[in-house]
Every structure is written in structure tokens, then in C-alpha cells.
């Protein structure tokens, strides 16, 4: 478990180093995810070296959003003042992204591929 935690933090660190080096507004975690996928694909890291901790983290992904989500409490006044605009834009836009992404992917997905 500690070994797989090391691999994950190593790639998080590498991701942050790359993000800072390139000066891009993409967080180190996202670049770290790409780098770790590449490392697994190139067999530089074996799946069992990272899987125990990775499974623990991905199975509990929702938990990590809870404390910042409670932060909604700070914006009750602003949310009340502009409720219609914020709620309307959030709901409609989320539905649009779901429909557009889903339909485009389904339309272009090669038959006999992943279904």
C-alpha cells in the first residue's frame, strides 16, 4: 500500500513540475494522470505497483469533494441574489453538455468497438 502511495505522489509531483515548467493553467494532478497512464502503457510502472492505493482513492472520489462543497454556505447571499441566473445556467448548461457529449460520442463510436 505504501509503495503504491509513493508511485501516485511521485506522479503528482512530476505533474506539478511539468505544469510549472510549461506555465500552463492545468493542475499537476491532471498532467500526473496522463503521465502515469503513459508509464503504465510503456510498462515503466507495473499495474500492481500502483493499484492498491489507486483503487482506494478512486473508490472514494466523491468524499474529497465534500469539504469544498460545504463551502456553498459562504455564498448563500450571492446565490439568493442571483438565484435564477446561477441555477438556470448551471442546470441548462449541465444538461446541454451531457446531451452534446453523449450524442456526439455515440454517433462517432465505431461499430464493433466498445459496446
Amino acid at each position, binding site marked *: 500500500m505504501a509503495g503504491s502511495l509513493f508511485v*501516485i505522489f511521485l*506522479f*503528482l509531483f512530476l505533474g506539478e513540475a511539468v505544469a510549472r515548467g510549461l506555465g*500552463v*493553467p*492545468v*493542475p*499537476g*494532478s*491532471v498532467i*500526473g*494522470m*496522463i503521465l*502515469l497512464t503513459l508509464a503504465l502503457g510503456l510498462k515503466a510502472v507495473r*499495474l500492481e505497483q500502483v493499484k492498491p492505493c*489507486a*483503487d482506494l*482513492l*478512486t*473508490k472514494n*472520489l*466523491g*468524499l*474529497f*469533494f*465534500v*469539504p*469544498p*462543497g*460545504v*463551502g*456553498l*454556505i459562504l*455564498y448563500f447571499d450571492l446565490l439568493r441574489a*442571483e438565484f*435564477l441566473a*446561477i441555477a*438556470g*445556467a*448551471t*442546470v441548462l*448548461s*449541465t*444538461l*446541454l*453538455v*451531457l*446531451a*452534446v*457529449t*453523449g*450524442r*456526439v*460520442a*455515440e454517433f*462517432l*463510436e*465505431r461499430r464493433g*468497438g*466498445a459496446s
Partner: protein
Amino acid sequence: MSSLFESPVFSIALTLGVYQLATRAYARWRHAFLNSVLLSIAALILFLLATGIEYETYFAGGRIISFFLGPAVVALAVPLYERLGDVRRNVRAIAAAILAGGATGVLSAAGIAALLGASRAVVLSLAPKSATTPIAMGIAEELGGIPALTAAIVIATGVLGAVIGPWFLRLAGVRSRLAFGLALGAAAHGIGTARAAEEGTLEEAMSGLALCLNGIATAVLAPLLLHAFDPLIAAS
């Protein structure tokens, strides 16, 4: 006595305990609105309002939990790697869907908010709402929005997508598991990915990939698109 309940340890124990209960409630009743993230946030907000504990005090412990979002995003490489064959077979579909979805997200969130009369700061805070929290906050800052408001809206978006997304995708006629995963990840980032993982490993892998790619697409597209449409937003 009060200092005991204001310690980070209390916040951490409370958050873990509430999340555990919420997860069990969802496992037992399997109702979409019992989403464990939604239930936990609602319960903790009620708790803070009832006890008068400040959010800053709570978040001194809470930030230690949310810190693990970074390593958790890195860990999404594992389900992605396990489904790399599906990615290779569908590179064009994935790229086109993410570009279309990312542009739709930025333009529709900012456009609808502007049409409904939101202030400029709110419009700019809403624009990156489908990207994962750290990306969205960074974009909001760059655009001139309010990063902390963006974080709250991003999480509300994630919860919304996780709760009604699966139902809405069926309504929209999306049948493919690959498209289902991509759509949940693109619209509802990590919270959508947690929901997609309940459906299967393909959905989880595609949702994690969509979270990553849509985050990058939003970071690139949001400043460009908002600059192009700036007169409209400025007029609001």
C-alpha cells in the same frame, strides 16, 4: 470545550462519519437523490448552521480531506490504463465529443447566465463550471471571476450531473456505455466519475478520461471563447 469541536480532527472525523452514513443510505435505498456527496454536503451545512461553527474552522480539517483529490485524479490513470484498448479504438469519437462538450459547457453556462441577468463576476465564475475543481478555480481567477464561488458551482454541477445525468442521458437516447461515461465525466467531472464507476469499468475509465480532457479543453477554450463573446457579456 468548544475548542475541541473546532479542532481539525473533529472536522475530519465528522466528515468521514457523515460520508459513511450517506454512502450506506445510498447503498440501502439506491435512490438517485440520495447521492452520497449531496447528502453529506447538505448534512454538514445543516450541522454548521445549527452549531454556529464557522466554515473556515470546519475547513481547517476539511482541506486535509480534499487535499486527496489531487492524488485521486492521478489514480484515475489505473481505470484508464485498464481500458486503453477502448480508447485506442475510439480516439476520434472521444476527441470530437470532448471538444463539442467543452465548448458547449463554456458558451452555454456564460451565455445563459448573461441572458438571465447575472453580474459579470458571476458569468465569469460560471463559465468553467464543468471542469474539475482545481482547473475551474484557476480559469475563474484568470478570467476575473470569483474562484471560491466557482468551486461551489462546480460541485453543485457535479452533484446535479451525478443525480440526474444517468436518467437524462437515457432520455436523450444515449445507449452506448462509452458515450455514457464520457458525458458524465465531461459534464460532472469527479462526482460524475464516481457515479459512472457504479455502472462498470468502461464507464469509469471513460468518465475519468473525459474529466481530464475536458479540464484541459476548458482551460484552453474558456479564455478564447469568452474573449470572442465578450461584448455580449459586457453588455449584461
